[in-house]
């Protein structure tokens, strides 16, 4: 009896390899395909969730048209979209230096909220007593200091004890929330804990209320692009991000870079907090930032930590948000629908990066190659 002893190694169905080169044009093709696929899945989800669409499937055209109508329908909607884009972009920009250093700052929500608190605290105590020309710069200063300190605390422990920064900054968000609700209780003794809109300390209106915010976001984008790509600091950040050991070897003081970068990150979050507090709300709630600190993490990551790309990604998120809000209005569904649609689209955008970075080799194709 003869047995076949040759070991049979079964080829896996799919074999992966990292792509070495992939033309940017094709990469954008993949991203576009992912967006289209995501929109189709959103349409399917809409059929499941929206009763008015089930009754009248012909309105699916309205469903997709709402994405355009929501942001570009009127000039007011366009300005609102640009304003939302700018705020989200500012927070994402603030995160970028830290992310380039591989410091996973999940605390933008809290750092921005502290910025709002700083601005509003100054406004609350000194509004009306000081001239606006003094009040507003001090509000800005306070916002930047508050945000910077909130970012610096986790960085100190990261630099000294290598404390896990993702979890630390995440917790700081909630501490910030309760710090704000503490001050609300003190400021509004009546018990309602909602601060009425303050009369003073409003960022002056140029062209309209939103223009200045958009301008600041644009300047910040360019400034940060230059800082990260063409300055010594930016280079040090990249080296620490790539390899802490290399950084130590070439004589970069890693703790110093961590502290400096996180201070910058927190200060920029504080600046955004000032824009929200002084430019838009003139009041504060625990929801003043409204989760944008978390959305910004996704914006920065999807934009490959490139400030210019992030304009596109934050635009995408805000167009989806406003489109979906338009849908909930047109089809009369729960206000939480935008989250569902943004979530689905994010899955596709996040997932498609895999097909840009890796190449799939299927079993059949490979064995043919071997025969040849």
């Amino acid at each position, binding site marked *: 009896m003869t047995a076949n002893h040759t070991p049979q190694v079964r080829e896996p169905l799919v074999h*992966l*390899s*990292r792509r070495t080169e992939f033309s940017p044009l094709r990469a954008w093709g993949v991203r576009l395909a992912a967006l289209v696929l995501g929109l189709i899945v959103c349409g399917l989800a809409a059929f499941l*969730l929206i009763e008015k669409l089930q009754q009248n499937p012909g309105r699916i055209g309205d469903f997709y048209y709402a994405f355009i109508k929501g942001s570009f329908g009127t000039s007011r909607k366009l300005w609102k979209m640009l304003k939302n884009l700018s705020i989200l972009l500012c927070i994402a920009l603030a995160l970028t230096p830290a992310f380039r250093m591989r410091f*996973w700052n*999940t605390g933008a929500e809290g750092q921005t909220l502290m910025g709002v608190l700083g601005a509003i605290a100054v406004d609350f105590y000194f509004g009306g007593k000081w001239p606006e020309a003094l009040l507003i710069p001090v509000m800005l200063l306070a916002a930047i200091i508050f945000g910077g300190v909130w970012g610096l605390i986790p960085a100190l*422990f990261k630099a000294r*004890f*290598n*404390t*896990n920064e*993702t*979890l*630390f900054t*995440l*917790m*700081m*968000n*909630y*501490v910030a929330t*309760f*710090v704000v*609700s*503490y001050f609300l*209780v*003190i400021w509004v*003794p009546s*018990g309602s804990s909602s601060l009425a809109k303050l009369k003073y300390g409003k960022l002056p209106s140029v062209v309209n209320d939103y223009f200045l915010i958009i301008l600041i976001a644009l300047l910040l984008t360019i400034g940060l692009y230059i800082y990260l790509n063409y300055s010594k600091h930016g280079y040090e950040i990249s080296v620490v991000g790539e390899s802490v050991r290399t950084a130590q070897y070439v004589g970069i003081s890693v703790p110093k870079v961590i502290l400096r970068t996180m201070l910058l990150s927190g200060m920029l979050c504080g600046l955004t907090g000032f824009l929200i507090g002084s430019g838009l709300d003139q009041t504060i709630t625990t929801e003043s930032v409204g*989760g944008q600190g*978390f*959305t910004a*993490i*996704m914006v920065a*990551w*999807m934009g490959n930590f490139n400030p210019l790309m992030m304009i596109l990604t934050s635009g995408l998120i805000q167009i989806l948000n406003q489109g979906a809000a338009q849908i909930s209005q047109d089809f009369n*569904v*729960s*206000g*939480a*629908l*935008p*989250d*569902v649609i*943004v*979530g*689905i689209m*994010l*899955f596709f955008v*996040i*997932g498609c*990066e*895999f097909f840009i*970075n*890796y190449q799939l080799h299927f079993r059949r194709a490979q064995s043919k190659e071997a025969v040849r």
Partner: protein
Amino acid sequence: MNIWLNFLIDSLAFGATFMYGSTGEILTEKAGHLNLGIPGIMCMGGAGGCLMLNLVGASSLPPFLIVVLGILSSAAAATLMGLIYSFLTVTLRANQNVTGLALTTFGVGLMKVIMSKLNPSVYLVTPKVYYRWPFAGRQDSLQCLGVMFFLGLIIAAAASYVLYRTKIGLHLRAVGENPATADAVGINVTRYKYLTTCIGSGIAGLGGFYYVIDYMASQEAYLSLEAFGWLSIALVIFALWRPHRTIIGSTIFGFLFSCSSFITNLSFIQVTMALKPILKMLPYVFTIVVLIVSSVRNKRENQPPESLGLPYFRENR
């Protein structure tokens, strides 16, 4: 009943929400995946269970079956969420933080849409009595200790046993510490990551369902679920990645979170309104302190898993 005992039992019952959530998260983190989607997963766990109860709540099925169906469908909905997460992070090697946050956005939104369509008089009013067996009729805090509370205790203890006393647990921890080494030993890294993430998500989802149907048993309860998801992630650190410690940790968290409302009942303690936010802040501050202390002491068994947050690709060097 003695007011302090009442308070303790209430903290235990409240804490079970985080106990589920953080037991699930510990399993996932031990496989090397920081799942920030837990709030979304817990929300969907709640929505999935309530969706099923909305179908069977008014039917004439035996109560036992209704309880089991609700639990299973809650776990199933949460597991599906875990499947999305693990497909994106394990197979497609996407960034875990980003995927988790997207999952939370999606899950919280979808839950709110689903819950707004359900009928509370069907999914809540009758079934909640079944879930609160055996203490359903009582007027004191004991009424909140139901079937799912005890299930939570069992799951937390079992998870600790599996993680630290069995071969499967040893393999799992190896995957989380150093997947390349585990792979070299012949452990199927992908399978371990998928299974633990899905099972962990299923467990976490039950926490959301427990809070909505048993502990709070009100139709607005689902609105505060997201915050408890984040608290569950905090509890993971507080418990230093040991599931059984979440039982104590969750009670302390529950105590701190609800003591602001309990303390007002005590005549001998003066509470100002301003004290409430401070008390609610304490769980997070304690967590930060634990995180710092464990990193300062730098004991190896108390650290986060070595490869937490990093994707694994065999050909990477």
